[in-house]
């Protein structure tokens, strides 16, 4: 009886997922992107009119999207895909890349490395995509990345784990999310600018506790300050009095609460009780609206949070926001918007120098991403403007919705904006967006 019940539930879940896929595929057709295999057969004759205009009779350039439409990333995946589709539609309306339309194929990575790898295989082997974009979970990206560099397909990702760009990826990975080291380093710089000299690092037990500590020590030493104490605490404790005692003894001017929501909530309460008057600094995911519901304002007032932020003042972000309408533009869809733009402009730049065989287009895109995203070229904020400039033979520097999108030699993003906010009377007040 019981097992039959469970099975029928599982079946129901599967059915639901299929239903979800169908809807998305239908949406895809409505937008006139050909789906999957059929496009390979249609060749030239039935290349679909995109945006109402018939395309030139040229073979399309195919890109693959692998966002998490279901699973833990489910809340973000559909919007990430929508951002990519918007850019592709815009590029096609602008005439595509050197007359070649862009074709977008997508699979659901299910926030699951296994499904992600299967999806990537299909996109690379069957659809022969020239670039992959939109992987979200670090575990998925880690699984998919080797397939990409082995097949010379650039991978644009929003995953944050430090280890990803340390893979031997030969330049094929571009990451638009700051890695955790950069996030800590940026936070440390902010604190130093604010005059912090003695910081106490209270970290939840996690894979990034020690690397955060190393970064903090390096930064504060260089600034003539010091990390006055470092405790890795166990997250599941209900009381942290002894930890707070140790902290008070070290007399820090700033405490860096490097934990998660439940433990940081308890720590804020205990710091208040203990009469700690220094600066309290914590990642934005560790203090949110829920914290304000749990703790009285007098306890949370003054807490400073920071997080990487899309460049909300940028023209690219503003246009993406208009396109999304009522849907809020989260940092991930801002990033996938930039993934698609980067891939298309890099392909245009590669083809500007003459024909490139399809088998080498992936590598050519890899080699051209930095040429169109950084440097002294004309600043462009949309794929259409970028294509027009490249077609006119001008150098471009794409500034995206997520930020100025410049990559270092490992493929890590540089120059992402960070948002600093301070809790004040049960809400966040923006301090800085830099």
């Amino acid at each position, binding site marked *: 009886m019981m097992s039959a019940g469970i099975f029928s539930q599982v079946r129901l879940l599967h059915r639901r997922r299929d239903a979800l896929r169908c809807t998305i595929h239908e949406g895809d057709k409505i937008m006139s992107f050909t789906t999957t295999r059929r496009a390979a057969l249609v060749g030239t004759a039935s290349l679909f009119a995109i945006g109402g205009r018939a395309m030139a009779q040229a073979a399309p350039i195919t890109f693959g999207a692998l966002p998490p439409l279901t699973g833990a990333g489910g809340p973000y995946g559909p919007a990430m895909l929508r951002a990519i589709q918007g850019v592709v539609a815009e590029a096609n309306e602008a005439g595509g890349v050197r007359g070649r339309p862009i074709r977008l194929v997508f699979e659901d990575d299910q926030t699951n490395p296994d499904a992600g790898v299967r999806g990537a295989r299909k996109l690379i082997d069957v659809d022969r995509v020239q670039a992959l974009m939109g992987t979200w979970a670090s575990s998925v990206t880690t699984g998919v990345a080797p397939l990409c560099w082995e097949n010379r397909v650039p991978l644009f990702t929003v995953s944050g784990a430090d280890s990803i760009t340390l893979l031997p990826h030969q330049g094929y990975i571009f990451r638009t999310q700051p890695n955790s080291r950069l996030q800590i380093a940026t936070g440390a710089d902010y604190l130093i600018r604010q005059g912090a000299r003695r910081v106490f690092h209270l970290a939840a037990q996690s894979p990034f506790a020690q690397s955060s500590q190393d970064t903090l020590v390096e930064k504060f030493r260089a600034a003539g300050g010091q990390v006055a104490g470092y405790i890795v605490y166990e997250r599941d404790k209900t009381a942290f009095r*002894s930890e707070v*005692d140790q902290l008070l003894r070290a007399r820090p001017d700033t405490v860096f609460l490097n934990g998660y929501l439940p433990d940081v909530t308890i720590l804020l309460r205990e710091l208040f*009780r203990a009469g700690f008057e220094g600066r309290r600094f914590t990642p934005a995911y560790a203090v949110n609206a829920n914290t304000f519901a749990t703790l009285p304002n007098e306890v949370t007032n003054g807490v400073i949070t920071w997080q990487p932020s899309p460049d909300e003042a940028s023209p690219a972000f503003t246009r993406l926001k208009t396109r999304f309408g009522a849907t809020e533009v989260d940092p991930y869809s801002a990033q996938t918007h930039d993934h698609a733009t980067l891939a298309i402009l890099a392909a245009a730049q590669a083809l500007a120098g003459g024909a490139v065989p399809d088998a080498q287009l992936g590598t050519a895109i890899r080699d051209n991403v930095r040429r169109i995203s950084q440097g002294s070229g004309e600043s462009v904020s949309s794929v259409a403007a970028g294509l027009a400039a490249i077609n006119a033979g001008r150098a471009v520097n794409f500034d995206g919705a997520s930020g100025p999108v410049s990559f270092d030699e490992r493929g890590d993003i540089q120059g992402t904006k960070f948002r600093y906010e301070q809790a004040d009377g049960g809400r966040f007040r923006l301090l800085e967006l830099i």
Partner: protein
Amino acid sequence: MADWRDLAQIALNGLFAGSMLMLPAIGFTCIFAVLRYPNFAVAGFATVGAFAGWLANAQFGLPAALALLAAFLAAGAIGLLAEELALKPLRPAGPLTVAIASVALTILLENMVRFAFGNDLRGYDLPILRDWRFDGIRVSPQQVENSLYAGAATASLFALLAFTRLGRAMRAVADNPTLADIKGVDPDRIARVTVFIGAGLAGFGGMLIGLDTSIDPLTGFRVVLSVFAAAVVGGLGSIPGAALGAMVVGVGEELAGVVLEPAYRTVTAFLAILLVLMFRPSGLLGARN
């Protein structure tokens, strides 16, 4: 750590932490004394109590003392219901089966709470007070108040056991169920009362933990290891033992912070269980066996 104040502070923190563990440990040991199986569902009862108290306090505006009473009653009622529906039918299969079922029960209760209230943290509607300072030693008014509540609940339980007919019957069943039965004490009724009181105390303790911190569906589960350790250290089935064991575990966990990284603090609960089982299997105050 040279200053005596540091040690005094640690001892004090430990005693407060112990007083938080005391009631769930007593509840656990009560149920063990009468029914002879370890009911790990005290974790679930503690969570249920914490949320019932939260409803009473933050939603219905009752003061903390009345909300604690609500926590006791709600957790007791849920405990009794769960015992009758889920655990009692398994008793003939032996204590191990019931113990395993109680682990399942705590997961079930935790998820029912999650279903009803979500995963968010919740705090009671109480002012957060600054600590008092005595010559550099910090004392939190909330913790003092909590210890008083815990002490009052324990004292009431002792009074019940020592001075009432019901209490004597409970002790009789704990001591020798067959003999108690012959003497006309209904062991089933006593079992029900004990489960109600035991689960209720766990709920009371769960709310005390919540008053000091904040609550979520894992509130009880986080402390269950320390609670179990306290009961074992004190001697399973001994109520004064559970109270003493809670203090030993509480102070031990804080003292361990001096020599160990705080991240390894939980190891002290395991160490306490290990040492007691090696050198004094009946526990500090346990007499049985």
